[in-house]
């Protein structure tokens, strides 16, 4: 058991080390998300009423699209140096590779959220710094990385993967996006845990299902 965790952590840590050195993925996610937010600030009228109404949607759409870009990067680098094959030759089962890469992606998305959400709060003039927001960000980041890692690994051999990944990823994570947007709406309107409970439950169920299924199914996709 500890062996398993050590292997997963070794893969994620390796991603972190590389990320700290060239800052590819986090810059991709954060830059893209901040850009979308900035464009919205002058594309729509952000009076207090409007901000509450459209803010959550804009925020999560920005994070979702940016997440896709980041996920693409995370796997593309692994393919360009064909290091994915080094992982495949290693005597570890495929689900550990999946969990390790997902953990890395989860950390990248979380980092991006830590930068993007305060900016969102400032630009849209909304109060989002509450524990509920931490929970929403966590479940969303877990779901994004669970689904995104699987799909990024799938589309990595396609030339047009920049197009293919969003096409696969966004429809599948729609429930998660709805959950994030709705819970954030409750949150900016001063809602309580109770009001967003059913959405958070849905998101957690989504996360658990996709982590389990993806880990089981991952062995089918990597070898050519």
């Amino acid at each position, binding site marked *: 058991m500890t062996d398993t965790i050590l292997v997963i952590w070794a893969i994620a840590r390796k991603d972190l080390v590389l990320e700290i050195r060239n800052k590819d993925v986090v810059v991709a996610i954060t830059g893209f998300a901040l850009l979308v937010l900035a464009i919205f600030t002058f594309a729509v009228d952000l009076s207090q009423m409007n901000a509450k109404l459209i803010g959550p949607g804009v925020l999560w759409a920005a994070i979702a699209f940016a997440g896709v870009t980041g996920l693409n990067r995370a796997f593309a680098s692994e393919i360009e*140096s064909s290091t994915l094959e*080094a992982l495949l*030759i*290693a005597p570890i089962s495929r689900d550990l590779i999946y969990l390790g890469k997902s953990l890395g992606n989860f950390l990248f998305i979380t980092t991006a959220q830590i930068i993007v959400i305060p900016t969102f709060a400032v630009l849209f003039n909304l109060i989002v710094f509450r524990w509920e927001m931490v929970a929403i960000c966590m479940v969303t980041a877990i779901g994004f990385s669970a689904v995104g890692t699987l799909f990024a690994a799938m589309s990595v051999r396609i030339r047009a993967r920049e197009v293919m990944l969003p096409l696969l990823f966004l429809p599948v994570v729609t429930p998660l996006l709805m959950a994030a947007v709705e819970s954030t709406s409750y949150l900016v309107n001063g809602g309580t845990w109770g009001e967003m409970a059913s959405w958070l439950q849905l998101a957690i169920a989504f996360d658990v299902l996709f982590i389990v299924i993806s880990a089981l199914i991952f062995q089918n996709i990597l070898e050519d």
Partner: protein
Amino acid sequence: MTQTNTIAIKAEAVVKNYGAKAALRSIDLEIPTGGVTILLGSNGAGKSTLLRVFAMLTRIDSGNLTIHGLEMMKEGPSIRANTGAALHAPMLYGDMSVRENLMFSASILRLPRKDTLIYETAEKVGIQDRLEDRVRSLSHGLQKKVSLARAIMHEPSLLLLDEPESGLDGRSVNQLDQIIAGYRSHNRTVVMTTHIIEHGLEIADHAVVLQHGNVILMSNDPITERSAIMNAYASVGAKL
């Protein structure tokens, strides 16, 4: 498991296609334990695909493949634990140092005494001075050596090498030969492709010539059957 001692790799009617392109048509092959086997053939004959199949990077479409008597599809992790591979691409992270790359491999291989092991392995391939260099800054030949170090770090009983001499200078080729000789003397198996056929035949115990995804010649005595092998190889080359 009685055959474990004699046959390292057994392939029966192995087929691999990429759409309309046939990579391996029907490969029947037995590679004995404890020797050096070289795969010969022109580009696209299926050498690299075959090595990738042995390394379990490529799934076969049909046929049977056992490695050390273990069925490939069923016992993946235990086969891979005893396999080391240095294939065409170096498979290294350019932004990490040589030591970090080896350290990462050692931790996913769950090896003990990592620091000493890494130094010893680096010494074997002659990169002990370059351990702190970023892989990106190394020449192609040095990257090949790091890749080789990663492949032999856990002393696998099956070593797969795809053109290991390419990019190496004379002294490094000698080091490579020593490593291969060491493998043979420990009754371990080496399967390699090579483009320096004369050199390959000198160190080989078995030779396999491939053409269009088929085995056209299998020799267990490459020194005496040298001319036959050269003829088969030449006929393959002529068709290119």
